[in-house]
């Protein structure tokens, strides 16, 4: 029965009588639950607003129509997305929304946040090495944007948090690409020799991943982990404030990317225990790449032009390459140490106790 003081019910009744479908006017489960957006100093975050049905993340998604999670489905909508990632465990992590919000809040601009004026003419050998390294990193970051980019449209909108996080990562990588391109060109040096050899170009094997977790293990844990260590060491080979800022700001972004990969592996490994062996095999491959440089993503790997450039920068010139090589070995050792720590956090540390881990990892830790 419609009461005079309930206009919503009155409209519904009227619509029904007139033959209109007014189901879209149904009140949702959160109707009337206004959030206090002033209560939190950090503003309104995704993790704050999702409640009720909007917060229900299905273990498996049959959403192929682009329907926003939590909205009311309707019939007759064509399938617009051929989403291959429709199982929660395949992409989920517990803090996807938090990492996305952090990424958005901590964006920076290479044009204005880098004190470019502090870059002064450098000795030729140093400038050439800077430009060679910048060229390599530009190439790596191009791949680091392309690879997650390919997966974004493959993820069902029901898992929008990791999907949006990947979008933010692509933006980060674009910024890294632009800042290192600027570094190569700002001081009269120029872009140097590209990478790529008979064993494969940068990113070649990441691109061929058949599964999101396979890609994430290669990109986030192995590749970005190595690059993060390098960015952190960047301060040791910076010749001015501009370069220090570049490395520090890039390292911040990179550590978010690594955190995504670690937390995803942690989630998947705890939910789908029957996939642990599969993940271990990804880590086998990641370790081979780490110790041999086979992935082409690690600028510190032996045999790459970027490796020699790093030795020049870390040593302080062409004539101090041997000294630079010693520091570079310390970089490699730290890459291995940090990799081991991340794999432990991800919940796969048993490989370091049961003999599964690549024996060369231990050699690195012992020798250097």
């Amino acid at each position, binding site marked *: 029965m419609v009461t005079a003081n309930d206009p919503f019910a009155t409209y519904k009744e009227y619509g029904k009588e007139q033959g209109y479908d007014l189901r879209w006017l149904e009140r949702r489960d959160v109707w009337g639950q206004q959030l206090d957006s002033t209560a939190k100093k950090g503003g309104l975050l995704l993790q704050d607003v999702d409640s009720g049905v909007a917060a229900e993340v299905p273990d498996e998604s049959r959403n192929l129509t682009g329907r926003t999670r939590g909205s009311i489905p309707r019939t007759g909508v064509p399938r617009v997305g051929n989403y291959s990632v429709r199982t929660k465990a395949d992409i989920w992590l517990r803090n996807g929304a938090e990492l996305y*919000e952090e990424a958005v809040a901590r964006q920076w601009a290479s044009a204005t946040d880098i004190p470019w004026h502090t870059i002064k003419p450098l000795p030729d050998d140093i400038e050439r090495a800077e430009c060679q390294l910048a060229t390599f990193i530009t190439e790596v970051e191009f791949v680091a944007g392309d690879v997650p980019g390919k997966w974004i449209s493959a993820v069902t909108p029901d898992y929008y948090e990791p999907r949006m996080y990947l979008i933010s990562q692509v933006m980060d990588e674009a910024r890294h690409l632009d800042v290192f391109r600027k570094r190569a060109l700002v001081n009269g040096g120029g872009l140097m020799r590209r990478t790529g050899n008979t064993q494969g170009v940068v990113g070649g094997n990441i691109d061929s991943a058949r599964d999101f977790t396979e890609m994430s293990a290669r990109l986030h844990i192995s590749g970005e982990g190595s690059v993060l260590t390098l960015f952190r060491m960047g*301060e040791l080979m910076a010749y001015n404030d501009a370069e220090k800022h570049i490395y520090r700001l890039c390292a911040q972004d990179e550590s978010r990317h690594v955190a995504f990969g670690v937390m995803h592996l942690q989630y998947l490994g705890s939910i789908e225990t029957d996939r642990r062996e599969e993940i271990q095999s990804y880590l086998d491959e990641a370790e081979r790449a780490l110790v041999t440089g086979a992935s082409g993503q690690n600028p510190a790997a032996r045999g790459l032009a970027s490796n020699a450039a790093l030795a020049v920068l870390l040593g302080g010139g062409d004539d101090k390459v041997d000294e630079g090589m010693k520091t570079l070995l310390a970089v490699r050792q730290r890459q291995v140490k940090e990799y081991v720590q991340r794999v432990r956090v991800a919940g796969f540390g048993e490989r370091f106790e049961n003999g599964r881990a690549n024996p060369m990892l231990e050699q690195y830790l012992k020798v250097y």
Partner: protein
Amino acid sequence: MPVFPSTEWLEAVAQRAMADERYRRYGRVDALVGIKVGDRQFRMTFDVFDIRDIREIANEDLRDLDFFLLMEPERWQAMLDSVKAEGHAGLDYTLNTLDLKLPDGLAINAMGDGYRMDKFFRFNESLQRFFDLSAEVETTFELPAPAAD
């Protein structure tokens, strides 16, 4: 004149950070951060752009933090002296460089939680700016720092 280490000193730096445009430009920070100087420990809550709940804590309370910064008292003073002299940390005294060069690192999570520890890297530029702003604080040192009564 604030004494390092003390809650007063940390509050003086925090006040400057919260009012600093560049600190805010680096974006929100969400981390429970500690410092350990000699036998004394302090914690701070970095809550978006606020830095609050600054207080001295017991050694065992360090386990509640995302990470804490640990150096010998003399190195703390050398870092802050470098900041004072140059207006910002010199190359050998940035948080990142110290973390790389110290045998056990600078930032530590007491429970070995690498994910929480990673916040040191994720918010590094903001934390660096925080300590760089100590250049504006007239500091006296009481080192080494014995445990408070």
